[in-house]
């Protein structure tokens, strides 16, 4: 044990990450599943007059529009799952927000901005409260949000009087402002539905946010090793509450989009959406154990589900058979991801 120090630089050399391109591809492995399904969709698409119906601009816009709400929710869900939690209340919060927008604008004659802001705030607070229950009292988020689901659904029913509240537009009493209707329309030459735009904006914002913010490090840390996070001075409780709040906020944003797309806020809106959103997240490669995953994956996962639904419908597959096929494709997509180099 003499002065060998200089020689012993030791330590494993940092090897050139084998096949950088392949590795990068695999980092976005969920994109593989999406691609595979997309190609399959083109192959199996019905044709009319030589045109491949699936890839017509209209149809593609429909595909994305159809998943935009689930997509928005799934992005919030990604955050929650990244910290190792789960949020079962999102579908019910969507319903609550849809009812809220309709009631406020139609029955209470609120303006566009105040109504939307209040609804978003409700989602945020609802989520934050769930965060408090899980972060501060320490109840498993599954239970907290299962209860939250029932509470939000109950509130939506009470607020709406149990019936869907129809939305008509105009300046009169019991009419929602025209500005609200815009959210349901299409832009860029009538091609891109506004909900798709909102989904895209939220997705990009989330991706950028996760890349550049310190908060995102904290979030991964809480999900990856909560104790290490705490010891490093990460404000674990605050991170958790914030994440549930964001998820609630995005669910209520989806609810607003839902209401405007369907011209109605109904207390039964969004039933079962939580499972679709979680499926999108998990197909997108995020681990339910927390600490690992990405928003980009989630977006791919949501689109995969959308394309799958669309191509089955375009082929008029019997709805029972559809269930079987969807089940199998979901498993296959997930299995495909396992091909990535060991993590």
């Amino acid at each position, binding site marked *: 044990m003499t002065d060998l*120090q200089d020689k012993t630089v030791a330590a494993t050399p940092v090897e050139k990450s084998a096949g950088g391109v392949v590795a990068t591809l695999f980092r976005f492995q969920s994109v593989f599943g999406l691609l595979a399904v997309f190609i399959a969709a083109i192959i199996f698409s019905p044709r009319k007059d030589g045109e491949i119906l699936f890839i017509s601009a209209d149809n593609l816009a429909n595909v994305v529009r159809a998943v935009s709400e689930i997509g928005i929710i799934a992005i919030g869900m990604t955050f929650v799952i990244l910290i190792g939690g789960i949020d079962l209340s999102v579908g019910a919060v969507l319903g609550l927000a849809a009812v809220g927008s309709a009631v406020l604008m139609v029955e209470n004659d609120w303006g566009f901005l105040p109504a939307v802001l209040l609804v978003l705030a409700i989602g945020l607070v609802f989520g934050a409260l769930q965060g408090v229950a899980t972060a501060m009292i320490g109840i498993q988020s599954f239970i907290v949000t299962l209860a939250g689901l029932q509470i939000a659904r109950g509130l939506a029913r009470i607020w709406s009087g149990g019936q869907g509240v129809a939305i008509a537009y105009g300046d009169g009493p019991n009419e929602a402002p025209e500005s609200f209707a815009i959210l349901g329309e299409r832009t860029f030459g009538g091609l891109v539905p506004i909900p798709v735009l909102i989904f895209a904006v939220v997705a990009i914002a989330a991706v950028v946010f996760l890349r550049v913010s310190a908060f995102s490090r904290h979030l*991964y840390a809480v999900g990856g090793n909560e104790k*290490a*996070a705490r010891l490093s*001075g990460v*404000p674990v409780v605050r991170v958790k509450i914030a994440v549930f709040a964001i998820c609630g906020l995005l669910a209520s944003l989806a609810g607003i989009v839902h209401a405007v797309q369907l011209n109605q806020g109904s207390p039964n809106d969004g039933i079962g959406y939580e499972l679709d959103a979680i499926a999108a997240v998990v197909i997108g490669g995020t681990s339910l154990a927390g600490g690992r995953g990405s928003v980009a994956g989630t977006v791919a996962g949501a689109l995969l589900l959308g394309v799958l639904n669309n191509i089955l419908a375009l082929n008029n597959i019997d709805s029972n058979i559809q269930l079987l096929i969807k089940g199998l494709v979901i498993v296959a997509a997930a299995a495909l991801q396992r091909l990535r180099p060991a993590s």
Partner: protein
Amino acid sequence: MAEGAGLVRMSGIGKRYGGVQACREVDFSLGAGEVHALLGENGAGKSTLMKILSGDVTDYDGTIEINGEPVHFGGPTDAQAAGIAMIHQELDLVPGLSVADNVFLGRELRTKLHTVDRRRMDRESRALLERSGVKLDPRRPVGELRVGEQQLVTIAKAISLDARVLIMDEPTSALTTSEVERLFDVIRELRRSGVGIVYISHRMEEIAKVADRATVLRNGQIVTSFDPRKLSTAEVVEAMVGRPVQTMFTTPDADTGDELLRVDNLAVKARRPRPGRRDPEGISLTVRSGEIVGLAGLLGAGRTELLETLYGVAPAGTQTGRIVLQGKEIRPRRPRQALAHGIGFVPEDRRTSGLVLFHSILANTVVSSLPSYGRLGVIARRMERTASVRMAGRLRLKFGRLQDEVGTLSGGNQQKVVFGRMLLTEPKLLLLDEPTRGVDVGAKAEIYRLLGELAGQGLGVLLASSELPELIGVCDRVVVLRDGRDVASFSTADSGEGDLLAAAMGEGATFEKLFTAEEVGGAQ
């Protein structure tokens, strides 16, 4: 006690966990520019005392003063704000985050736009790591690193805090000699700049080298405080354990029997290779029954991977060469098969690979030998209790009740549980990966004694260790691995630490190769 009292003074510290009094009326002080070693058996209360100082444990008795000001920290952040940083014994890193993100977790560097400044974080963490002697790509996820590398990352992280008080709880338990030397340089540098350091280690030879003062805890109480340069290791150990202990097992008896294990040109080609993993690339060795064979090598030489392959947990892929156990060729595909062949394995990271921390000592001890405690899949509870009480006694496990969660045991005692579990399977060949990591000298001696005893009964042992004294002291023979190959074999009767080290590092060529590879891969 007056000399360095300026920086930290803890008085009358007490902490109780259920029935266990972890600390009792402890007075402890630390001066600026002082390296204060904290010694004691496993479970003596060292980590607990330091967790109190670093704000991790917040409910305790007694008072803490920093620079004469009384403080009570509400959490680790408070302590960090007061200039106290701690390297935890159990490597607490976030596996999914990169090295740089881990180093700066909770105090990310920002750009003007308040976004995270990744480049600066990468640059600075690279520099910090180099300072503690390792070249690592700061963008690699920590979960991909070897245990030793992870330990260096935690050290870099602690250093980056620029703390006035730096607590190092067993910082070297997974490091080989060369990294340890490098760390000592860093410690000396920090001391010169006035940082007070608490150094906890079970590697006795380190204490005299770095510490200015040493305090010994036993059963949560201070037994003595002394100048480590003035006492011999034997005296220090006696203070710790309360009785004289012969620290090394020194009688490798030549009395070995037939060939037990023969490994012939073993190589594994993983179907999906992982960066940084060093699967066997042609290893040959033998272990005779009654023989203890050591495995030496640098960080990443492939010792762990060899043991894993023998135990049936090699990565999927092709395996060439032969493994012959008692004359029969075997090819274990999973641990169960290895166990059925009479091969036991003690993994190096007891927390992630060894234990279910929140399960009982009992459950953890008997899990590998369950079939022997009953019939038809029904467990005879009395038999398993008896077996685990017997094993606990044999290993001198320090514990409260068998029902206690194994995670509440001190690190060394956790290690004994994993060890005991394998012994209960009555193996013919025992594969040990750093079996004494974090184990106190007394317990180490027990383990060595036990190994000797078992070898006497015909057991063969293959022991990978980063502690050269251990290899020399315990083994009959040491095989040195480098880059996944066996490069030398020594009889411990006629060779020393220097020989092992030289063989492990190999020629300049290897060193050069490592370095070049780094240049290519680590470029910004």
